[in-house]
């Protein structure tokens, strides 16, 4: 896959993609949300 045969080399590439997808989902979901815990400090 992608010209890389060793799954232990391929894995970090795929996981990096997964990290970006998660970060995009998380970042956009909470972009304008205020955290109630901030007011309880």
């Amino acid at each position, binding site marked *: 896959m992608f010209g890389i045969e060793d799954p232990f080399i391929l894995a970090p590439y795929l996981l990096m993609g997964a*990290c970006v997808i998660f970060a995009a989902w998380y970042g956009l979901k909470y972009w304008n949300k205020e955290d109630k815990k901030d007011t309880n400090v």
Partner: protein
Amino acid sequence: MNTFALGLIVIVYLLSLAFLGYLGYKKTTSANDYLVGGREMNPFVMALSYGATFISASAIVGFGGVAAAQGMGIQWLAMLNMLVGVIIAFIFFGLRTRRLGEKYNVSTFPALLGKHFQSTHIQIFVGAVIFLGMPLYASVVMKGGAVFIEEIFAVDYNIALLIFTLVIAAYVIAGGIKGVMYTDTLQACIMFVCMLFLLFWLYKSLGMGFIEANEKLTALTTKLAPEKFAAMHKGGFNGWTSMPAFNSPQWYTLVTTLILGVGIGCLAQPQLVVRFMTVKSSTEIRRGVLIGCVFLLITVGTIYHAGALSNLYFFQTRGAIATDLVKDIDKIIPYFINQSMPWWFTALFMLCILSASMSTLSSLFHTMGSAAGSDIYNVVVKRPSQLTKVIRLGVLVSIVISYIICYMLPNDFIARGTSIFMGICASSFLPAYFSMLYWKGATRQGAIASLWTGSFASIFAMFFLHQKEAAALGLCKALFGTEVLIQANPWPMIDPILFAFPASILAMYIGSLLTQKK
């Protein structure tokens, strides 16, 4: 290279830094401004500053060179940088750190731990570890920047190092964290753009796409002379698109030192933790997750990939692999850029390396100065009216110490030096830091035991157990007549973090259980 254009680019860059440093200086009116930017920094500035501080010239020059020598296994580090260094750090550590920092009204990492565990001992101890241990990392980053300037400008290393240091000193001392973070943001943008172009031009030079280049890099090992490959394989090398052989020296270095040391160590880096305290709410930190992740993907992901592929480029153009052409792996990336990229990009890339070095160094100097001034001097002497002055003096002293250490560093040490520092941070600080955020049963005594155990075990393992440092330091040989205390494999190859970090966790746990009030 066109000297005039290069000079012009550097002058514009330095003027921009001077302006941003001045902006930081003008907006700094109190010690709180100097230390945490008045807790009102923009999320883009915070996340990009975090990323630029995280990614030093060590990551680009040092680890990029490791990728050229050992292959794409180092991409695990890029992945951990994103997963642990941004996602876990921001979501599971950053949000709580920011709230606690505001609650305790503290501005430094040692003060945060000290205040939470109600112990000036902890604050001073953590400050001292930072002030004494961080110069090693700072000197490694300085070397990375100076080596690159030496290679590109063909100027004397000593002159490169001196000018480089003076410029950073000027804006850190004057502008405080605001000056540091504003300049970091500019530097992060330069790094981001340069890495994107590097990736584009690399494939253009190779004349092929992602998959074909990977396939050809895989096949490159078959084109090496058999005795050459046998010599490389002896250390564990299996090819640039394969992990090193399990249990081999290269595997232990890659996995235990570089990947685990840096991958986990990044969680307890005081210069990164303080970034979470510079924003006014959790929303800024949450926004920063995406910004930080994309930044790291493009910067470290690209340079490690390009480092490995540099072998393909050199084989196509010179009939040799990177380590044949450049013996010092710290110089492979500068050499590769100089040989493969257009002249104007070489100049721009120099700014990228300078930016990576300067953004990390400025934060390290600021953190060391804060530790010396705010966490040691101010706690011992208690003269808050002089705090900003004392911190500035601490910054100056830390710069001088790092500068001196830089002259004592051996070759091929950039990546290792980074790992050593991050390993010490993880072993010493992480269990206490994590317990502060998540364990109500954690006690002051447990935290003290963990801090001392982690620090002592790291130093002990470096002097007596881990072959590379123990052999170079020579104390074990002088005392016991052998380079390391345990010679049976794999113990001499296992990084100190694998001894010290569990010991520190254990000390935190047992110490807290024994001293909890019922």
